[in-house]
């Protein structure tokens, strides 16, 4: 069915179809729209969910963990500082191997305080053990929400999943998207049969015991394996989704990459704008393509290096800034993926859009010109560039 919805409404709609047993939430802009809409579904009796309005994000994530450990499907959602406030418990959710799904509406982290889009919030917990899947638009946010539980609950994975959508740009913009019938979504997701529910008197189980030098390391090793396995499962679920709903999802999307010598790598909503610019620049004769990373954690290192093997100059666009002195987080991961696999490629970082700063087709066109010049001259002036900042 074609429906006009904001990104937040699209995610809430997916949550209605998922009908999780427990949702615990605390409001924060720009996520609030998800829970506001979901609260309508609860009030109207359209879901059976136990809806918990908590006193903080720290508590919201804690309650979600409690419910998930008890053996039911549990969800929450957040943004920015809310996610930062959850941080301690975010890490615990992954460590307990609980298949929680959490939409994160990307918003800049304070300070200075800012409510608009960038990816610094999810990047702050990129190695917390959560799978992170980015969305380009409302359709993808909806589709990712439908796929997330099957990924999280897969016995080879058993890790929580964060699905992200860009604050305001996706969350508050009205778009038309295809939604699927309730029973088809329900069938696709299937039933959740927890292996070790906390509430089962016939098989008592302890969650969260003390774990010292004798076993902690082994548990972390298991967790690392779950993240590695997730790559295969995300692709399997993507293929199953395509079979059922006719939309294809993998680890990343390749756009006009077949004969490309130049390429852009982007995350999130900017991919839509950048694809349009790639089309325009292609008309000028540039052999340029684009890769949109969908699955950021686990990072598709090998697959990405393979997709980039013919590329001579690569522009990595980061909508957040890692304060490590060497550029954004995506830039660092992409460079690490290419190291030892493709020594010839020149990789340049373009940090943009912090705190909701607009990124225009013209900005992206300039990036394309910049990497074309690097290809012609062989010279990189600056490996980390700031697009749209007043110099």
């Amino acid at each position, binding site marked *: 069915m074609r429906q006009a919805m904001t990104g937040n409404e699209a995610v809430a709609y997916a949550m209605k179809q998922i009908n999780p047993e427990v949702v615990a939430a605390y409001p924060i802009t720009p996520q609030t729209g998800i829970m506001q809409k979901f609260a309508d579904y609860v009030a109207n009796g359209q879901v059976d969910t136990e809806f918990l309005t908590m006193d903080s994000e720290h508590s919201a994530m804690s309650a979600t963990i409690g419910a998930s450990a008890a053996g039911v499907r549990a969800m929450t959602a957040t943004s920015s500082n809310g996610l930062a406030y959850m941080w301690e418990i975010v890490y615990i959710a992954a460590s307990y191997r609980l298949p929680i799904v959490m939409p994160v509406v990307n918003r800049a982290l304070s300070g200075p305080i800012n409510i608009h889009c960038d990816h610094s919030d999810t990047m702050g917990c990129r190695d917390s053990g959560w799978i992170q899947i980015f969305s380009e638009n409302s359709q993808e946010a909806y589709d990712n929400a439908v796929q997330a539980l099957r990924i999280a609950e897969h016995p080879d994975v*058993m890790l929580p999943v964060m699905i992200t959508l860009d604050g305001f740009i996706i969350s508050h913009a009205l778009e038309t998207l295809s939604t699927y019938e309730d029973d088809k979504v329900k069938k696709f997701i299937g039933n959740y049969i927890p292996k070790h529910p906390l509430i089962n008197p016939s*098989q008592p189980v302890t969650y969260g015991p003390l774990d010292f030098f004798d076993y902690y*390391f082994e*548990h972390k090793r*298991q967790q690392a394996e779950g993240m590695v396995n997730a790559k295969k499962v995300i692709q399997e679920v993507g293929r199953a989704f395509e079979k059922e709903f006719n939309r294809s999802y993998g680890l990343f999307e390749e756009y006009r990459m077949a004969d490309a010598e130049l390429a852009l790598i982007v995350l999130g909503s900017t991919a839509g704008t950048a694809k349009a610019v790639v089309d325009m620049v292609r008309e000028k004769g540039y052999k340029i393509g684009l890769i949109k990373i969908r699955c950021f954690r686990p990072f598709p290192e090998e697959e990405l290096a393979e997709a980039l093997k013919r590329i001579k100059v690569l522009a990595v666009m980061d909508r957040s800034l890692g304060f490590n002195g060497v550029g954004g987080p995506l830039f660092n991961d992409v460079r690490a993926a290419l190291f030892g696999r493709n020594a010839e490629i020149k990789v340049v970082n373009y940090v943009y859009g912090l705190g909701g700063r607009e990124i225009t087709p013209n900005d992206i066109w300039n990036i394309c010109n910049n990497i074309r010049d690097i290809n012609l001259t062989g010279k990189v002036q600056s490996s980390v560039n700031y697009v749209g900042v007043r110099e």
Partner: protein
Amino acid sequence: MSNKKWKEIPIGGLILEPGNSVKYKTGGWRVFRPVHDPTKCSNCLICWIYCPDSSIIVKNGKIEKFDYDHCKGCGICARECPPKIKAIKMVKEE
């Protein structure tokens, strides 16, 4: 405790066997050990009530011994033993 490999244990640090904390010996944490003097003891069992690690073993209503495999040496038993009795002394572990 046997040290199992990472593929042999439940994920997430879960403990699937109820009551198995008895297998985890915590006696090695002790700096001071409680020593019981049965000649002073009135067997009021206040120490037994207060012991947080169930390390005071009682038989037929009388204190038999301490479970030194699990006693962490917190000293609560010695502190709670009535002032006129003082049948438990904390002695430094050598």
